[in-house]
């Protein structure tokens, strides 16, 4: 219960009212004239002078959650509880603080109040702390959530996954799979019929884009259309072929890269390249191609370095997954190393929470989650796991004007067999190293404190500190045995990297520790130590105790992949469903919490989740089974009667019309022009200099003109804040966020891109040249071929006529003299097809 700041007696009398009404400042009229005068002359100026800097609404940073600029604020108290006990100075924290003999603990810090001031405060409290000041307490507004754990557990997503029986349906012939029955039952309940089947031309284009991100070739289309087997068998042949193609992993791997905020540069203030991120990207692609079970995929990403491995190859394959932990967009120039550390942990925790559980766990960093039953304590329990992990991103945090952020010693070394590596440091030195690093961190912290607070430390003290920092730094460098220690010069030098070094981003065990809760997420506002653990709302038996000598990442992965975990499998199958049907069963694919949307087909979701785990978490099996369902194979065309009832297609009575992702639009243009190189470039993204600040680089940001390289888009470097124009106008996933579902916007720069961009014109020209080179009788045949190539279908007679009119028309093309390659009417024709809606939509 909060204390009202009114007089003791008054408080008593209004106890009931206080209990019901929110704490309100007492009007000046209720305070005696004398007391008011005392407050105004002695107390208000004192508080304003000594306290408001840190304890008022105007404070740059409110300290301790305490506001002393209003009666409400004082009544509410701060993070340490009630600040005054009206009438009882001895029991008031305020008096203890101003009298605290320790200059670091006393309030205000360092500048002790005059004895007369302390006495004035004492008198004020004794007379009941009369306080006429009104004003809100927004800065300390209650952050108490409106949930309880008990209530919160009832949310649908926290219920165990059930194995619902497929419902009975009237049209039993229609349902090809159990999933179909769940879909059909709802359509029938709405007294509708599903859309008719899509024809084979539509279906192979849809399936090829969905599984590979590329259009089918004319030959592939022909083979399917002419396949004499039943529709089911013929389509199964196509699906199996596509699932086996290496392009499958490139397509589905990219979906996952959206979720894990993949990028080839760190972004933010010092946007330095990640020269080894591509290994994680390739690991993801390979994981999809080899149909790695999802539970294993998950475990490797959280704890691949801790899994047992019988040889270096296996270890490499597993440890690459931990790149997941190192890809965050960090402020490398952050001056407060504690802030940097906590931001890193937050990035890892938040990404883990949304990617695997569809939970916005990161919301609980500063206070209990407002909507979901995740407490701040839960947050720091999980945060401790990541806080006990050393992230190896190849970059170091440097405050100040430092320019060199590349740190090869902070990378994973591949090709070695230990499960735990400490690059360039002998294992026996590890303890020493950790001790020194810890010491150095402490000293540096002291130094920043000095700088921040404008401390009264003497010049001598500061010099002493500097020399200690230098000395510890020297010892560390000696331990590193890096060439730098032998050279003169102040900087610790990083080992040089040769192109042959097999290095990767990832993580390893760090100093195992439980973290202190941070009040309001402020690094320096410490609460209680929270033992590492998992979310309380997702307990199926008691909280497991985590090992004392390990971070607990392995246990975290085991908890997530436990058959009893209600979210992991649901979230994973929902993502797959979304990519095949255009909308998740839970539409908010990254948010299964209270603010997310509820599943439109909860039983279907559970059915899929249960079969997913029962089938060994095989993603390919799940994808195959959904593709062979009837629901996947129906037409996307509108049916007026059904539109009347369900225009949003919540029932999945038709396939959704979907716009291609930017990668597919680009890759398709390259593919139809015949210039796409489908080989996997087995090197780093071109020209990524690990020392270059991409923000400061001229055009291209060190990646040269990679955008026009005829390789698949998934292999282009993803430079944060430096995405190619086409990527930003076609809604590429913002690479510093978890994006399970991309936006689809339609804006004029997209049209301008197709009309005027050199890359488009070039590919249109190459496509028309390719068509011209074919032994085709006339323009009519060539138009027909262009339609097959670009739209995957034949042109209607009207369309052919329209096209021939255009080609025979009065288009005047002027090849800009500087632009080299000739452009003709045919080029502009192909360009028009590329620019049309049909080219960028999957029907």
């Amino acid at each position: 219960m909060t204390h009202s700041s009114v007089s003791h007696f008054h408080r008593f009398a209004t106890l009931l009212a206080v209990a019901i009404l929110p704490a309100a400042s007492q009007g000046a009229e209720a305070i005696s004239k004398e007391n008011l005068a005392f407050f105004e002359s002695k107390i208000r100026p004192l508080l304003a002078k000594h306290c408001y800097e840190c304890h008022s609404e105007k404070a740059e940073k409110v300290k301790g959650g305490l506001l002393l600029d209003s009666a409400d604020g004082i009544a509410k108290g701060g993070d340490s509880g009630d600040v005054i006990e009206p009438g009882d100075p001895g029991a008031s924290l305020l008096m203890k603080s101003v009298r605290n003999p320790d200059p670091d603990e006393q309030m205000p810090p360092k500048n002790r109040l005059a004895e007369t001031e302390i006495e004035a405060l004492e008198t004020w409290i004794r007379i009941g702390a009369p306080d006429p000041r009104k004003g809100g307490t927004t800065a300390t507004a209650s952050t108490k959530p409106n949930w309880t754990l008990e209530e919160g557990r009832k949310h649908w997503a926290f219920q165990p996954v059930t194995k619902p029986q497929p419902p009975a349906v009237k049209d039993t012939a229609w349902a090809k799979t159990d999933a179909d029955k769940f879909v059909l039952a709802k359509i029938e309940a709405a007294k509708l019929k599903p859309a008719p089947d899509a024809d084979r031309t539509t279906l192979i284009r849809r399936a090829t884009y969905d599984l590979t991100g590329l259009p089918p070739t004319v030959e592939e289309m022909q083979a399917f259309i002419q396949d004499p087997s039943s529709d089911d068998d013929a389509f199964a042949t196509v699906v199996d072929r596509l699932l086996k193609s290496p392009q499958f992993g490139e397509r589905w791997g990219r979906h996952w890269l959206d979720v894990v905020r993949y990028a080839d540069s760190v972004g933010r203030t010092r946007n330095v390249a990640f020269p080894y991120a591509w290994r994680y990207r390739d690991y993801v692609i390979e994981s999809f191609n080899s149909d790695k079970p999802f539970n294993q995929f998950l475990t490797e990403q959280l704890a691949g370095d801790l899994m047992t491995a019988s040889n270096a190859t296996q270890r490499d394959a597993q440890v690459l997954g931990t790149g997941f932990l190192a890809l965050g967009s960090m402020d490398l120039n952050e001056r407060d190393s504690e802030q940097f550390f906590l931001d890193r942990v937050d990035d890892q925790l938040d990404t883990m929470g949304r990617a695997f559980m569809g939970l916005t766990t990161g919301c609980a960093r500063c206070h209990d989650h407002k909507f979901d039953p995740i407490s701040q304590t839960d947050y720091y329990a999980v945060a401790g796991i990541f806080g006990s992990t050393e992230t190896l991103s190849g970059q170091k945090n440097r405050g100040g004007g430092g320019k060199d952020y590349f740190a090869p010693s902070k990378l994973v070394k591949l090709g070695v067999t230990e499960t735990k590596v400490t690059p360039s440091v002998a294992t026996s030195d590890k303890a020493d190293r950790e001790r020194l690093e810890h010491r150095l961190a402490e000293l540096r912290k002291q130094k920043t404190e000095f700088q921040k607070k404008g401390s009264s430390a003497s010049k001598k003290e500061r010099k002493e500190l500097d020399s200690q920092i230098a000395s510890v730094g020297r010892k560390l460098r000696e331990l590193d045995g890096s060439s730098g220690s032998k050279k003169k010069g102040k900087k610790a030098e990083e080992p040089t990297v040769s192109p042959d070094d097999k290095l990767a981003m990832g993580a390893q065990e760090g100093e195992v520790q439980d973290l202190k809760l941070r009040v309001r997420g402020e690094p320096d506002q410490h609460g209680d130590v929270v033992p590492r653990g998992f979310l309380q709302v997702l307990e199926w038996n008691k909280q497991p105790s985590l090992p004392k000598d390990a971070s607990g990442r392995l246990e975290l992965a085991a908890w997530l992949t436990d058959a009893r975990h209600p979210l992991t499998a649901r979230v994973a199958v929902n993502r797959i469903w979304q990519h095949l049907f255009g909308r998740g069963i839970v539409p908010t694919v990254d948010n299964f919490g209270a603010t997310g949307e509820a599943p439109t087909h909860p039983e279907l979701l559970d059915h899929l989740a249960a079969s997913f785990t029962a089938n060994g978490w095989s993603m390919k099996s799940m994808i195959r089974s959904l593709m062979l369902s009837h629901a996947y194979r129906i037409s996307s065309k509108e049916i007026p009667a059904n539109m009347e009832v369900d225009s949003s297609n919540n029932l999945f009575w038709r396939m959704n019309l979907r716009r291609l992702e930017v990668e597919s639009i680009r890759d398709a243009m390259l593919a139809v022009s015949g210039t796409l190189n489908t080989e996997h470039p087995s090197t780093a993204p071109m020209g990524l200099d690990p020392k270059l600040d991409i923000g400061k680089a001229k055009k291209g940001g060190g990646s040269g003109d990679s955008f026009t390289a005829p390789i698949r888009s998934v292999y282009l470097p993803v430079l944060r804040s430096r995405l190619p124009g086409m990527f930003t106008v076609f809604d590429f996933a913002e690479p510093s966020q978890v994006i399970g579902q991309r936006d689809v916007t339609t804006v004029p720069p997209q049209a301008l891109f197709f009309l005027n961009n050199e890359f488009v014109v070039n590919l249109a020209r190459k496509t028309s040249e390719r068509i011209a080179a074919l032994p085709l009788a006339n323009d009519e045949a060539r138009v027909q071929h262009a339609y097959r190539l670009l739209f995957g279908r034949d042109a209607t007679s009207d369309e052919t006529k329209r096209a021939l009119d255009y080609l025979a028309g009065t288009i005047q093309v002027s090849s800009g003299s500087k632009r080299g390659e000739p452009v003709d009417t045919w080029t502009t024709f192909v360009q028009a097809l590329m620019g049309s809606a049909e080219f960028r939509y999957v029907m």
Partner: protein
Amino acid sequence: MTTCSNTFVPTSRRQFLQTTSAGFGWMAFAGLCSQQAARAAASPAGPHFAPKAKRVIFMFMQGGPSHLDTFDWKPELAKHAGKKASGDAKGNLLAPQFEFKPRGKSGIMMSSLFPNLAKHADDLCLLNGMYTSNAAHPQASIALHTGSVNFVRPSMGSWIVYGLGTQNQDLPGFVTINPTGNVGGAQNYGSAFLPASFQGTRVETAEGGIANIRSHYLNAQSQRQQIDLIQSLNRGMKYDYPSNPELEGVIESYELAYRMQTSVPATLDLDKEDAATRAKYGLDNKQTENFGSQCLMARRLAEAGVRFIQVTHGGWDQHNSLKAKLTANCGATDLPIAALLSDLKERDMLKDTLVVWGGEFGRSPEGQSAAGDGRRHNNKGYSMWMAGGGVKGGLRYGSTDETGGTAAEGRIGTHDLHATMLHLLGIDHTRLTYPFAGRDFRLTDVSGEVVKEIIA
């Protein structure tokens, strides 16, 4: 198209924005169908209360201009010059390097560095109590633009266009002219989790405006034929998807793109201005040409209805040669700024155009460098100014302490600045929210107070 009544009904504003962007950063594309949807779903497009300002021109002075030598008159600093700075600060106090004088009828103090701007003193609202949380360029720049240092968040221009929509269907709602590539780069005008249609459109004064704005092969007539072919294809596709707003959007996007190819270069074409005007902005002078072009372009964009326009002038990071470099910087910007203010006034547009001038932070009262003619970064107290758009003119609001290092009265932090700008635009900053990752986000996060005292 006859089945328009069967229109796609977005289930949420977010879904609507995500799928059609019948946009506010750009314009409503999907014709009648989505206009209906827009009314139903896109409630934030429009002010919460009567706005004072309809648009913003933000002059970003990257590097941290010295407030002590420009807009924050500190006689005490001159008096104590050469003395050891108090507290922990290194170096000796460095006197203001330029003479301050009262300007205009209001008599607000400005240094001699801005002789032309000084003529507009009675329109200026000096904000002398600015402070920000970080003293490093990238962090402070990103904070100034997005309100956040620790996370990737939408730019204020994106928020404003999201909140108010656009006034010109042929132009983007948020334009940034010659932005810097460093100190956050595109993050400073990015839309982060807001749909991409709200991101700032980058315009170069040099390279012909915006990307892909003209064809190198087809004249307007031939391109029209090409677009007609594209549109016939698009309409053909609509036959099977009559109520799909995205397809209508594609059709509209081509019509708009076609018009933009004329309207954008026309708006940006400074040759359309007469010689007197060009001279007024200093386009005839090497020193003022770059920023003058930006300011003139800004005026033309403002006239054309663009909601948020940013111009940028870098190089204010005077760790040394303060006197010479400040003279150069102010020389490059003073005339163009004054010209812009006077043009806006002539067109009766200053009253609803909020002009905001400032850098990511200011500079220290203490001198730096061996020669003592530089100043360090200072985030604890600095100055910005506003003009027009419903702010009081001829006002000096807020102050720093005696020697100008720390904001003392009328303190304005980053969230307060944003809250005030939104307020002038008719937006309650606590109600301009966007749902993402499980919660509603604001430009001002969880704080920010409108500085009511500066509102006319």
